[in-house]
């Protein structure tokens, strides 16, 4: 490994290690599994650097795609499913345990979101939790940027127009 390789590697590693770990953790909720899949993601990325072509997409999208594929492989082995969205759980955050009001709010929103198509839900998670741009999401899901934006918009629109109970509860809880 040359010095340049080493330094560039460290920059990339520091830039993405937490992001990729979080991305995987959000979809597994299990520390050891998240660490294992994060290791696999970086090893695979490192092994295949020569195949990466920045003219075809950003490095971030590329490494997130590897992470997503590892997750799909994991679910296929562990659960017999490749739908990673079946695993996503909105309410396992530790801070929710402390906040009864938030639990109630979340229950309403989660109930609706779970009825959404998996791809719509995935885009919401990527945009809100992973803080990925629509461009990155589009590259990872191999969709157009516009369709990802539209999907997020429609999801939010549906939640706030077709789920009045949730909104009412939110307002009530907020009032107290």
């Amino acid at each position, binding site marked *: 490994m040359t010095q340049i390789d080493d330094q560039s590697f460290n920059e990339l590693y520091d830039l993405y290690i937490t992001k990729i770990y979080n991305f995987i953790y959000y979809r597994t909720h299990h520390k050891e599994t998240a660490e294992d899949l994060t290791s696999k993601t970086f090893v695979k990325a490192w092994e295949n650097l020569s195949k990466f072509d920045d003219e075809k997409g950003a490095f971030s999208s590329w490494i997130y795609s590897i992470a997503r594929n590892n997750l799909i492989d994991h679910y296929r082995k562990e659960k017999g499913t490749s739908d990673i969205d079946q695993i996503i759980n909105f309410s396992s955050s530790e801070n929710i345990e402390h906040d009864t009001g*938030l639990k109630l*709010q979340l229950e309403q929103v989660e109930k609706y979101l779970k009825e959404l198509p998996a791809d719509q839900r995935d885009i919401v998670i990527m945009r809100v939790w992973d803080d990925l741009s629509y461009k990155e999401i589009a590259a990872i899901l191999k969709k157009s940027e516009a369709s990802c934006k539209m999907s997020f918009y429609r999801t939010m629109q549906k939640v706030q127009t077709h789920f009045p109970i949730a909104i009412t509860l939110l307002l009530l809880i907020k009032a107290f």
Partner: protein
Amino acid sequence: MNLQLQNLLEELYTLDPTLRTREKELKQIIEVLLKSKPDIKLDQNFRERLRIELQNHQPKQSVFNSINQNKMKKFNIYFGSALCLLLIAGAVALQANKNKQQLQLANGTMLGEGKIIRLADNAFGSLNNPSAGTAANTQPVAATPLAKSTLQQDVSNSTGSAPSLKPMSPMSLSTPASVPPANPLLRIYQPTELHYIYDGPAITIPSDKLEVLKKTALDLTSTQLNDSLKNLNLGLIDFGTFKNLNVDSFTVSEKDGYSITVDPKAGTINLYAQNQNYGGGCAIPLASPMASAGTSSSSSANAIIRPCMESQIKISDVPDDQTLIDAANKFIADHHISLKNYGAPEVVSDWKIQYEQSSDKATFYIPTAGTVLYPAQINGIGVYDQNGNKVGMGVALNFADQKVTSISELNLGNYQSSLYSTETDISKIMAIVEKGGTDTYYPADANAKTEDVQLGSPKLQLMTYWDYQNNNSTELFVPALIFPITKAPADVPIYKKAVVVPIIKDILSALPPPYQIMLPGIKK
């Protein structure tokens, strides 16, 4: 308003401006989504372990040769490389001038001396309040080279009343046969609720205050190394024109040999062999001569990638533990690496347990390299991670030729210490023990089967703990009870070797309740 929330709303308004009239509702929905985001802390030990593993991995191509778009980063790299060359030249010149004198720091101490600077009580700030660290008193009150710490003293004194808390002698890393090693991908998920049982002698905490330690960063400000570099004029740039220039970290490399990185802030030195293939990887078939320290980078880079199975080695090819330890010891002796702050070496061989349990040994993947661990000791006390694994300096070696491929976490060995209040209510500690420690989880399935895990007598040791204050994380070493797992169900994966419970009151009071995997708390 939160910037991310604002951005999300603006994106929606761009698509449909009429949504502005319903901003209140939208804002609340997005706020709920943002609040539900799991609060995750990446394990810093894992982060650094993986970094070292990847650095040992055979690189295929500099990614920065591929990423054309980031010109600035390229500049930084070239500049960094030039600086690195200067540092190498500077270090060589310094070494020649000083006739291999050991580097002396500004305060007169030497690296690896094991000095502990005692600070006032609670000097690292409140350990349960992320914003409390700035008010801490960090003025030293005494400097005692290898002074007998409060922790060690109290543990020794407690021998009579609490025999289980005697100082721990170095133990084998081998896991009890019934405890499978961590590898979640090789298991079939089966919901199980684990009950951790300790029914040994009563536990006592030796003191109402014990020492918490923090690694001291290496300050090179007043060293000759720093002096020789900060006034250097390269022609391209004059370092002397910058104020208070200091050496932050540096790497020195042998030509086609080893590369050594000194990280003063982290207080560590890491070494790795350039052009080595990844220890557990498949890049270079074992039948060909192994990439060694002398192999040229071009030949390594052009190595043909073959499937893992082609580079599979046999169990009979794996050297015995003593051979690996001897090879590691020889390397350490050859390079005058100090073992002052480490215990007796042990081979990390968790994979062998998995191998023994495997029903298909023919296809079981056997790693091509192993690690000899020199367990860290601070004032003679062992250091563990939260899963009960010993922490220390790892020396990685190829099985084929027993060549050292890396050394990770050679600590500089100097610390600050401060007394903190301990949790003396044993019932609170035992409540955490029964749950399996501070990072456990419970399966979601209400019909999950229940299994007992038996724990042995605890020993008072140190646990690594990452404290987050003011957006900075600091590694601390805190007193903790280590309950070894002595009996576990054979068919249930357990990721830890021991239940580890820190006994500093601040830390315990800050613990979140155990989270639940796949079980929404809201459905209770």
